[in-house]
């Protein structure tokens, strides 16, 4: 009898503990408000744990959190089945400029003739000057597939992780940046 009562209190206390540890009242208020924006909006505002960290620290992640953050993000990178990280630069060009796919030119100049390129990110004209060593190709691939695996909370979105670019798509964009025949590297020929 005593045991039963203890069990009851224990269960109640742990339920309360779970409820309290999950969300502060303000967080609950935030969830309620997001819910009132409609089911689709609510779904899209669900953050993964690292989006939540970047929001909480306003993109300035404390140094002690960085190693584990990078490790988690590195694990999310997937590679093409055939292992080739450099594809077809022409397909890469289409993916680089397509607003629904890479949309890369919104922030980076690629082909210097592209007039509407933005400057949120560094310009990439002549990116191929780095050569096509295994290390360069892999760094470029990883950066495009998951930018947060090298720079926590970078503005650059994780196009591969979110499925906007497949591993093969990513390899095509790598080629657009590194292939000597790509217009990105036209200025290197002289």
């Amino acid at each position, binding site marked *: 009898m005593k045991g039963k009562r203890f069990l009851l209190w224990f269960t109640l206390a742990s339920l309360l503990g779970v409820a309290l540890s999950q969300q502060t009242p303000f967080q609950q208020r*935030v969830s*309620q408000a997001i819910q*009132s924006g*409609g089911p689709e909006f609510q779904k899209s505002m669900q953050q993964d744990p690292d*989006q939540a960290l970047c929001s909480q620290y306003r993109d300035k992640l404390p140094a002690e959190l960085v190693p584990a953050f990078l490790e988690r993000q590195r694990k999310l990178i997937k590679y093409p089945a055939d292992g080739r990280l450099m594809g077809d630069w022409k397909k890469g060009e289409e993916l680089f400029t397509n607003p629904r796919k890479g949309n890369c*030119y919104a922030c980076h100049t690629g082909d210097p003739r592209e007039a509407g390129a*933005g400057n*949120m990110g560094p310009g990439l004209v002549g990116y191929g000057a780095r050569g096509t060593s295994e290390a360069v190709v892999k760094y470029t691939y990883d950066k495009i597939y998951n930018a947060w695996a090298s720079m926590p909370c970078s503005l650059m979105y994780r196009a591969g992780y979110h499925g906007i670019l497949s591993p093969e798509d990513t390899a095509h964009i790598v080629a657009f940046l590194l292939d000597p025949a790509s217009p990105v590297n036209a200025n290197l020929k002289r």
Partner: protein
Amino acid sequence: MGRFLGLLVALVLGLGALGVLAQEEDDPVKEAEKQKQQLLEQSGGILPSDLYVQQGEELFKAKRGPKQASLEACDFGRGPGRLEGVVGRLPRYFFDTRRVEDLDSRIRTCMIRLQGFRPEEIRRSEVVAIAFYIASLSNEKTMYVRPLLPQEKQLYELGERLFYLRAGPRDMGCASCHVTYVGRRAGVLPYSDLLGDKRVASHWPAFRYSNDQAWTMADRIRACYANLGMPAPDFYSEPIIALTLFMNAQARGARMDLPGFIR
């Protein structure tokens, strides 16, 4: 020698023209002012936003809805029927609905309560036109949104949280473009400095000449989410009101330019 001088003059003129072009691109406010003057000259002094204001005034004063009432008794915060400058103090807490409301949701509230419309009967285009009319009566008044009541303070904090919240397939939030990378361009468009430039939040609702649209702040917020690849929050919902409160409070002290005229 003469040829050399001619070349020099051409070069200087060319550079000067480039400079002018670059300046226009860099200052959307000046560019909008130029477009406004052009439009005024072409139309004989009438802007598209004037037509929305007129339409809104007619809708506001007409006896409509199941209750055959006008909106003239609607209280936007300064008492029933007092409309001058009200936009500068919205969103604010209303004791009758017991919630913080922005201009759009307050118009909707009055259409429901005074005119008897059912929520699903309310047409967005009518709310926008009425918002333009009410905004026109706040032109050149001062923006003085200041969260004072607990409900307002809480919603302000909520808006701030949403403003910095990064989510969705592009890992972004409002602050990514409007704070962290402000001054840079995505494509050809520069982003407004929401925390640093008081003019930004003090010109809504506004007419957008680039695509001939009449927008309130709610439309602006919804389009921003769409640009981030995220479904927009519903009209009149709390995320929109919270974000509007946060942004409008940043514009405190600005002289309002209403209805706005922007790209």
